[in-house]
């Protein structure tokens, strides 16, 4: 009582002061309040420690309060704010701080006045930044203590300690181990995405020796199908698709990237390397083809090539998409929002975003030639043979160097002076032409199959006798160009020039051209099928004269065959009479490019990619036969040339030596054997990175201040000695200090096994993420993963050998009610497999599956209308696969973004528009229609029936058991057998009675319409039909498409 009286006196005394202070100006947080809180409160309620869950250094947390749930500060109401009442309280139960120095009366009153005045807490002091930075996922994971558990004998590895500790705390017990058939099927579906064969199941069940389970894991990890299975998860994150998206959604070749991912996983490329190669493989020392291919990860973004686009806009969109993909798939944080503004919840600023952006903004949008291992061998062999022939020539011509030098003297200065003209650009046809620094013009965006752009320029040249058209290579063109066709080739239908005296456009006249020369003059060749314009005309490419013959069906072609088609080319056109206008001349060049196919919405263009126009007064000008790289070598003084440069000169010179005709012909012959190869989108660093600006609201037209490349300040810095490059960035991503990288991937692997990650929001571990169900387990796994050399296979072993994984997935109602989503892991996982695996199970069970790994994507049957307008924007190419390719695994199905393959889409496969690290798992009637009625599903049912009749013992029960086990591994129960047998008998009866047309039911192909379908030996057509009906039922069971 005495105490409270005295307190009251103090309060009253202070009130006068406080009232004045309040009247004048309320206490200022930074000046008056924070020092008080820091002195008395933060030790227990600050960043380090939060007793009772209360934190007072951060506004939102102080307002929210601690575990009591009551706000610690209620702005405007000091009387209802425990912070104010408790610092003033004398009650030992309540007073704060509980011990140590008490607050002075003035301090108490300042706090009270500040709260009463609304507890103004300025934004920059609110501490949110602090809070965001202290989020668990932004601290590098440490190795947590493995918790002790009571039921220690259940534990197989430390994972189980973490899981069991939680279960014991919840008063739950783990489930029994799944039976061996269920286990081996689960392992098989998880590791290779295919059901186990009956023999595999039986072998596993029969193997009672030590280590049988581990051996099953090793067998599956060693299977090449392991790479297919787990690459598919990664390909979702890499937003893999086989087309370029948006309107045209043209097909493109990126399957080398898909196969790279499969192979990388199969050889257990450590995850840190796996990431580095995908972000900056091209920058690694001695980058092999594989490492360029790996950068296809960044290039999986969509590209809009509809008419009327600005290529830079969609390059930027692709950059944003790359950032998003890195955020979701590698960092496990969402960074997309910082494209327009500071991240609202995570401590990522817009500046941070563009600093990272700058690290990626250094590359060409390249499309490179790639070769399979076999093709690479063949290529190397050709080079060896050519080298041998050339060495032989040198060997037999001891003075070859002198002779070559003499020749060199004759050609070194034999070119007339050319003046490059920089014309006005013509984008009227939809193609975007941009002028490059060297005066060349780059064609991008929409590529019509027929167009005749005009380029106009005024020149002061007193005399113009000839024109040169150079076709240049560019990393941004298909296979580096110089054309825009899928092979990087071009066809020039006609070359025309008009001239007018400057200022007198009415005097414009067509310039008569008398002669044309080119450095490549392929023989007359009919156009490839892809350039068919459906005119029925015989359209050809050939020598340069075809560009001057006034014939719309002939064109100059640049295709020198595989291995040599992607080189700069040139053509020279000489005027009949030189043009001379004292006041200057306006020249209009028309470059007719009409040798593409019928469909401008597909890859049928045959256009020029990058080209440059020049003029000369020399009337005797001819196209320089020397290739650019030879000219470049010649420009180097002989003594300073590298052997390679000398070889380049020799390689051309030998073709001019008449005595060597036979050797030259042999070399030409060898070139014809050069493999065709494929293309792949990849990153190729530019000589100089692009400048990056912060973009206001993410708008590429609103660049703000320039931004230097770097990483977010709230995360670990780039390695001290590392230059700010894409490669350094890649290494930074997988630095051990990176707090989210290892956690994100182990969480997703966990998600792959258990259906839900330890953090359920696997794309976002940031402050808005769902709290982890087992935080310590997540950190332990992340650290263990890194300690084991980032080995994915080690991680799989670790999880698979846990007792947690081996639990039965059967669930009793009370557990289901208690833990519906199985977050506590008191049972094994049970969920429907992914779309690709739905398909693969049917193919495998029926025996139709083609097990070949990799290669171009395939085209299982689709109804034609789906590929045509008005369903598709334009007609889509879908050459239905026949033979083995009809039955490839789901992951090899060609993926059009705008027209996802319906079987996979229906089962929630993402279409690759953006990075996806967590698929939905829906359960819909459309899925039933797919598995019941879709042609391949039906073919699988027929094949399963045939296989059963051919392979099984010849009793109905044995057959049933065999077919059943092909689908679900276990034998049917007697109840199940009874139900299926009844169904079989019913159908047999209906077939026999003619109600069901057996032939129709079992016949696959149209060919079967005339030839009776084959019936396995020992079976009747009626039986085959009835078994087909049974097989269809089996393939449609919930269990068949479910991992249990």
């Amino acid at each position, binding site marked *: 009582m005495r105490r409270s009286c005295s307190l009251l006196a103090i309060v009253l005394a202070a009130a006068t002061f406080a009232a004045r202070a309040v009247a004048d100006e309320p206490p200022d947080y930074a000046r008056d309040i924070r020092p008080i809180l820091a002195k008395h409160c933060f030790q227990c309620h600050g960043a380090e420690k939060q007793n009772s869950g209360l934190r007072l250094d951060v506004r939102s947390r102080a307002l929210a309060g601690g575990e009591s749930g009551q706000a610690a500060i209620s702005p405007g109401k000091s009387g209802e704010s425990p912070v104010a009442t408790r610092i003033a309280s004398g009650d030992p139960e309540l007073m704060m701080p509980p011990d140590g120095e008490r607050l002075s009366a003035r301090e108490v009153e300042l706090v009270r006045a500040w709260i009463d005045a609304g507890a103004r807490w300025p934004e920059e002091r609110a501490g949110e930044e602090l809070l965001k930075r202290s989020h668990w996922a932004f601290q590098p994971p440490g190795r947590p203590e493995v918790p002790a558990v009571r039921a220690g004998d259940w534990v197989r590895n430390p994972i189980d300690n973490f899981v069991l500790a939680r279960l014991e705390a919840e008063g739950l017990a783990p489930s029994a181990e799944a039976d061996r058939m269920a286990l081996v099927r689960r392992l098989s579906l998880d590791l290779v995405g295919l059901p186990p064969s009956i023999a595999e199941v039986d072998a596993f069940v029969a193997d009672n020796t030590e280590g049988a389970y581990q051996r099953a894991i090793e067998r599956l990890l060693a299977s090449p199908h392991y790479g297919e299975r787990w690459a598919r998860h990664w390909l979702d994150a890499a937003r893999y698709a086989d087309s370029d998206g948006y*309107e045209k959604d043209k097909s493109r070749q990126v399957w080398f990237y898909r196969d790279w991912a499969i192979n990388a996983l199969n050889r257990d490329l450590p995850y840190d390397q796996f990431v580095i190669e995908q972000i900056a493989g091209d920058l690694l020392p001695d980058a092999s083809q594989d490492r360029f291919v790996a950068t296809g990860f960044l290039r999986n973004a969509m590209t809009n090539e509809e008419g009327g686009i*600005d290529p830079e806009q969609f390059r930027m969109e692709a950059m944003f998409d790359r950032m998003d993909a890195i955020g979701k798939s590698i960092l496990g944080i969402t960074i997309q929002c910082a494209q327009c503004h500071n991240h609202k919840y995570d401590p990522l600023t817009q500046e941070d975003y563009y600093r990272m952006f700058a690290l990626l903004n250094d590359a060409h949008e390249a499309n490179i030639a790639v070769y399979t291992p076999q093709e690479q061998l063949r290529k190397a062999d050709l080079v060896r043979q050519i080298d041998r022939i050339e060495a032989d020539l040198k060997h037999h011509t001891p003075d070859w160097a002198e002779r070559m030098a003499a020749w060199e003297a004759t050609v070194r200065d034999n070119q007339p002076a050319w003046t490059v003209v920089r014309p006005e650009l013509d984008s*009227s046809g939809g193609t975007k032409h941009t002028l490059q620094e060297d005066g060349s013009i780059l064609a991008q965006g929409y590529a019509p199959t027929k167009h005749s752009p005009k380029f106009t320029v005024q020149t002061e040249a007193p005399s113009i006798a000839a024109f040169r058209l150079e076709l240049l290579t560019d990393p941004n063109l298909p296979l580096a160009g110089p054309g825009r066709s899928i092979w990087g080739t071009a066809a020039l239908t006609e070359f025309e020039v008009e001239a007018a005296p400057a200022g007198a456009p009415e005097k414009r006249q067509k310039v008569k051209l008398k002669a044309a020369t080119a450095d490549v003059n392929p023989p007359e060749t009919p156009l490839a099928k892809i350039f068919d314009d459906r005119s029925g005309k015989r359209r050809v490419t050939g020598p340069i004269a075809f560009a001057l013959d006034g014939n719309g069906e002939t064109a100059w072609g640049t295709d020198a065959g595989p291995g040599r088609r992607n080189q700069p080319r040139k053509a020279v056109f000489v005027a009949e009479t030189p043009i001379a206008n004292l006041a200057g001349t306006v020249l209009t060049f028309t470059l007719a490019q009409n040798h593409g196919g019928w469909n401008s919405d597909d890859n049928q263009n045959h256009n020029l990619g990058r080209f440059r126009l020049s003029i000369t007064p020399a009337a005797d000008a001819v196209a320089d036969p020397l290739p650019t790289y030879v000219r470049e070598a010649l420009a180097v003084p002989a003594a300073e040339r590298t052997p390679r440069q000398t070889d380049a000169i020799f390689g051309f010179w030998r073709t001019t030596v008449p005595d060597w005709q036979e050797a030259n012909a042999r070399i030409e012959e060898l070139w014809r054997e050069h493999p065709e190869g494929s293309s792949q989108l990849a990153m190729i660093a530019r000589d100089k990175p692009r400048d990056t600006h912060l973009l206001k609201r993410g708008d590429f037209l609103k660049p703000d201040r320039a931004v230097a490349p770097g990483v977010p300040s709230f995360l670990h810095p780039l390695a001290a000695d590392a230059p700010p490059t894409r490669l350094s960035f890649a290494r930074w991503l997988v630095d051990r200090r990176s707090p989210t990288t290892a956690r994100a991937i182990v969480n997703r692997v966990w998600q792959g096994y258990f259906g839900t990650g330890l953090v359920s929001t696997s794309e976002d571990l940031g402050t808005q993420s769902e709290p982890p169900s087992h935080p310590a387990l997540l950190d332990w796994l992340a650290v263990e993963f890194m300690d084991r050399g980032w080995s994915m296979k080690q991680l799989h072993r670790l999880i698979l050998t846990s007792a947690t994984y081996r639990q039965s997935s059967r669930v009793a109602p009370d557990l289901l009610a208690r833990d519906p989503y199985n977050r506590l892991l008191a049972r094994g996982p049970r969920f429907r497999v992914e779309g690709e695996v739905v398909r693969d199970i049917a193919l495998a069970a029926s025996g139709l599956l083609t097990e070949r790994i990799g290669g171009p994507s395939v085209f299982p049957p689709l109804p034609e209308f*789906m590929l045509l307008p*008005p369903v598709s924007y334009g007609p889509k190419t879908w050459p239905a696969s026949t033979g083995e390719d009809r039955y490839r695994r789901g992951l090899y199905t060609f993926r059009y973004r705008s027209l996802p393959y319906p079987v996979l889409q229906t089962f929630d496969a993402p279409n690759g528009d953006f990075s996806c690290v967590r698929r939905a798992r829906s359960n819909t009637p459309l899925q039933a*229609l797919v598995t019941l009625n879709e042609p391949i599903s039906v073919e699988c049912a027929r094949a399963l029936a045939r296989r059963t009749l051919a392979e099984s013992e010849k009793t109905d029960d044995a057959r049933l058991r065999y077919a059943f086990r092909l689908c679900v591994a276990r034998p049917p129960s007697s109840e199940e057998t009874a139900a299926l047998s009844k169904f079989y008998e019913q159908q047999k009866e209906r077939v026999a009675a003619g109600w*069901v047309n057996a032939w129709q039911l079992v016949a696959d192909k149209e060919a079967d319409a005339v030839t009776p379908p084959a019936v396995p030996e020992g079976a009747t057509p009626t039986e085959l*039909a009835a078994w087909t009906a049974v097989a269809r039922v089996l393939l449609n069971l*919930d269990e068949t498409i479910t991992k249990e």
Partner: protein
Amino acid sequence: MNCQTYLYRGQDPRMLARRWFLRDCGVGLGAMALAQLLGTDACAAPAAVASAANDPLAPRAPHHPGKAKRVIFLFMAGAPSHLELFDYKPQLAKFDGTLPPADLIKEYRAAFINPSSKLLGPKYAFAKHGRCGAEISELLPQLAEVVDDITIVRSCVTDAFNHAPGQILMNTGSQQFGRPSFGAWTLYGLGSESQNLPGFIVINSGKKGPSGGNSNWGSGFLPTVYQGVAFRSGGDPVLYLSNPPGVDSQLQRESLDTIAQLNRMRLDVVGDPEIATRTSAFELAYRMQTAAPELVDLSRESAETLALYGAELGKPSFANNCLLARRLIESGVRFVQLFHESWDQHGNLKQDLKKNCQDTDRASAALVKDLKRRGLLDDTLVIWGGEFGRTPMAQDGDNGRDHHPNAFTMWMAGGGLKPGLTLGSTDELGFNAVEDVVHVHDLHATLLHLLGFDHTKLTHRFQGRDFRLTDVHGRVVEKLLA
């Protein structure tokens, strides 16, 4: 498109478990189509009805009572010319052939043309119609008959001027791919009332498919059950709907019964309610096999109705699709979207517009008339429009117009809109919307309002953020509301 956060938002597996104990006929637990079954399944236990609340497609009440309960969106892909159809500009006719004022096109980006191209006067005459006196092109004589029932917005603006981004923006509220479509949001918010059909159905017609393809009706990060399902007016209305060769209806029925029986046995062993959900999905699929072909069979319509739309049996057309749209919403489908892509008149403007209007005018107007006489217009929203407008400047000589985001017209009808209203206006050249400007986001906000939603509250959490159709924009255009 199928990347999402929750399997089924708001669906609590515990509810499923409870139902599982009840063992009501072994059907209809969970994910799909439960509600559809409940209404008609005599053996459905009362508790099952309660659990319909956990069905992602169960009908749900919106934030406030919506005037509109369903939507038919006639999406005119390619972008129709507002200047020939709805927005009469005498000054544009007057200045035909002259260059636009320099300050008007300052910083203007055009897709194909040089912005400083000659102005092109309207190719068709306009006249006022109806009691409201709405001014409409001579190309739209049928629409002119229903102007008192529709609401025209002449002041629409968008951010995109290329087709794919423009269409994606109009249909998903974002130029970036990966967001749920308007139809998906609607279904997410309201559920479906259809017994046998998907709740969001898409039908295509015209010269091409929509730019951006399936993403225009995707579910984005919403559960895949909300995405649009492509329907066809000919052949199998839904992909893989027909039984395979040799499978007659009895074999199909007995197959499904056997599947259900075996699934049930498995359910008894493993206890996963998802098994029952799958069985019910198969049941719904079976019912769809009967219902969908009946629905697309327009021969059940009277000759008068067919004539009203200009529909011809067995001949796929926009007209048939309009009639089909009416039949679909009558059977409880929540959202029907027709894509008619043919409006990209860079050239041949005069002839192509005439043809397009011949293809679409009668059917679009008929839809309004037909819905009205059936009493459906009051709570059905009909929306007509494309992704942007066309330039007042000419392309391709004097017979084409380029893409133009600064002004375009849309019309709507029914569902709580003010009939007979023409809202907004553009400047004298039809270049910029200047009065009562309605951005795509505003349009979405308004349409959601009519459906009963506060557009700022119809959200879905993904990647740590609450996403919505209107992103961080949009305001309800009060003037449009009845």
